């Protein structure tokens, strides 16, 4: 009896240690990612490649990107610009859609719209990219032709913004629906009892109370837009210098710079390692933007947990 107990205890201990080991390994992946990207990403600033060394200051502030002078200052600005525009386009649409689904629509319509948004959210980015390159880009080109602007086959800031807005819309909408639905009903009832119209209540009370939740959706959307690579690369066009704020000129984002031409780059060359430097910048940009947005979110007021 005692022996069996001892054996069981030993088995428990072994099992626990195996599980602990896998858990630690899983947690270490994020460390591995950051360390690896940092290690390779710092190389260009300390090593010399065929007598060529990259200055960090020039790298982070420069306005031209071409071999072997890789400078990404303008790419950071253009990335922010594209993401900002996409959020400005998609956030109002998403919030209104969420309001419609949560408050206005009859049940059937609400279900149809929810399903539509879920389907949209599950479409892989490569298909958005294909749609962008095969359709949106041509639409933009034809539109630009009509108003007399020459584009690079339609690959432009505008096309990128359209595709990105489509991709982040479901994210913002889904979180906004949850946020609006979890606004306490007595608040709305109180507003109605005070004589506000239904629409007034929806726009002034429900939306206002749901603001932090909606903003959480926007933060997620921004994160997705900053990190989106495949679709953006297919429609951005790859501009060599900048920054550019014109809607119809080609543009370049951090992710598209990492992805474009990776197969011509040899392992260990400057062209290859610089992508890790840009990846590192991308991680830092995402972190900083998230920290700022979360600080803003905290000032927006009380957050109603979805019930």
């Amino acid at each position, binding site marked *: 009896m005692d022996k069996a107990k001892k054996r069981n205890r030993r088995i428990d201990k072994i099992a626990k240690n195996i599980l602990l080991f896998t858990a630690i390994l899983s947690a270490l992946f994020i460390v591995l*990612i950051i360390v690896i990207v940092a290690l390779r990403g710092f190389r260009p600033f300390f090593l010399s490649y065929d007598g060529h060394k990259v200055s960090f200051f020039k790298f982070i502030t420069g306005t031209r990107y071409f071999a072997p002078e890789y400078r990404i200052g303008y790419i950071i600005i253009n990335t922010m610009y594209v993401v900002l525009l996409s959020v400005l386009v998609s956030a109002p649409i998403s919030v209104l859609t969420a*309001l419609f689904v949560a408050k206005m629509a009859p049940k059937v319509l609400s279900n149809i719209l929810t399903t*539509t948004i879920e389907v949209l959210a599950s479409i*892989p980015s490569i298909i958005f990219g294909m749609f962008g*390159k095969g*359709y949106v880009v041509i639409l933009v080109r034809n539109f630009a032709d009509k108003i007399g602007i020459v584009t690079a086959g339609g690959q432009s800031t505008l096309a990128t913004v359209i595709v990105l807005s*489509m991709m982040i819309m479901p994210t913002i909408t889904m979180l906004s629906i949850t946020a609006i639905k979890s606004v306490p009903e007595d608040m709305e009832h109180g507003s109605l009892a005070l004589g506000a119209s239904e629409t007034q209540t929806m726009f002034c009370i429900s939306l206002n109370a749901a603001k932090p939740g909606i903003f959480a959706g926007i933060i997620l959307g921004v994160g997705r837009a900053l990190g989106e690579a495949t679709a953006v690369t297919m429609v951005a066009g790859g501009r060599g210098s900048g920054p550019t704020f014109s809607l119809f000129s080609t543009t370049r984002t951090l992710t598209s710079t990492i992805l474009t031409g990776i197969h011509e780059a040899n392992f260990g060359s400057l062209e290859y390692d610089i992508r890790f430097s840009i990846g590192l910048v991308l991680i830092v940009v*995402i972190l900083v933007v998230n920290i700022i947005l979360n600080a803003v979110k905290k000032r927006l007021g009380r957050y109603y947990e979805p019930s």
Partner: protein
Amino acid sequence: MNRVNKRKVIDTSLKVITYIASFIAVIILGAILFFVFSRGSKLLSFKILVTDYHSKPYRLETTVSAKGLSFENPHIKDAYFSENFGFAVKDDYTLEGIKTIRFVYIDDNSPLKTTINEQGEKSPFKEGFIFDSTMRAVLEDESTVTIFSRYGAENLVNVLSDAVGIQTANVKSEGGGIRGSIITTLYLIFLTLIIGLPFGILTALYLHEIAPQNKVTNLLRSFIDMLTGVPSIIFGLMGAAVFIPLTSALFSNPDMKRGSVIAGALTLVVIILPVVIKATESALSVVPKSYKEGSLALGATKTQTIFKIMLPNALPGILSGAILSVGRVIGESAALIFAMGTFIGDKISITGRSTSLAVHIWSVMGGEIPNVTLASTIAIIILIVVLALNMSVKVITNRFMNKYK
């Protein structure tokens, strides 16, 4: 009264704007589906699923003679039959949509027997071969005449009816299919799940069942949560910098330095890890506490309780995690472009280079003239599979959540 009217106008206009905005989502989805299906359905067939991407050129191994031969016409619709050489050809399109001549029938005793390619590999003269270049036929007076494929199948058969032999014939096997990418995708799903599922499940079991409530556990949790926020291109960088050299060293194969299926699968393991962990944990938390307490009270050890009570009861949740992971694997592109490369392969091995369906789209959309038709065809397949997977997750979750109510 005036103020009430003003209010009404504002209310109505706000409502109308909301109505319009909420249908933009429907329009976008409709536009994407319409685009993909209208462009891609033309190519969608069983054939494209089983055909290689790269077509292989072949030529006749030796000069063939058709002196005194005569074959019976099988009467294939729209096809032209060459009685002296025993084959039927028809005007057709390749999978890329280019006009061509296709061999649809070859008699068993036809003088066209074996072909050879540039590497000297022999292959039988097969039905399905494409003739899109030139053929040199020998006439009765030993002069030769060149036949061009662009004049069509009827011309080919007409000229050959006067010929007594064929000196050279350049043909090729059908190309433009996605067989390799389908197999690679299946390999990726299999490899990713077989490595990633146990890993994720064990981690979730630890976090949910064993981990003490302390700072270390919180740290582990927040580290794993951070993985969900990492963009897939960063996973790709990691795959390129860690898994490519690692697998290349493990298999001691320097060719794998440019990416391989196994390196792609390992990268995907990291990507699906948080998905599996989250699904398993939420499934574990739905299992009633009384199950666990009952098991422990009956004298089962902790290990027995975890693996024989908690795990089996959480299986539906784990299943939905696995299905979500499959969706992730099928849709992933940026990470795989780095870890696996964009070379579309036909001979698939886990140490070789090839593309998943999503990366196949990337490859054919990348050139100067993007092949939207083929890309859309692949997109149809991806869309159908991903939507079916998502629907099954919904069904499973609904059933599972209701089970303990």
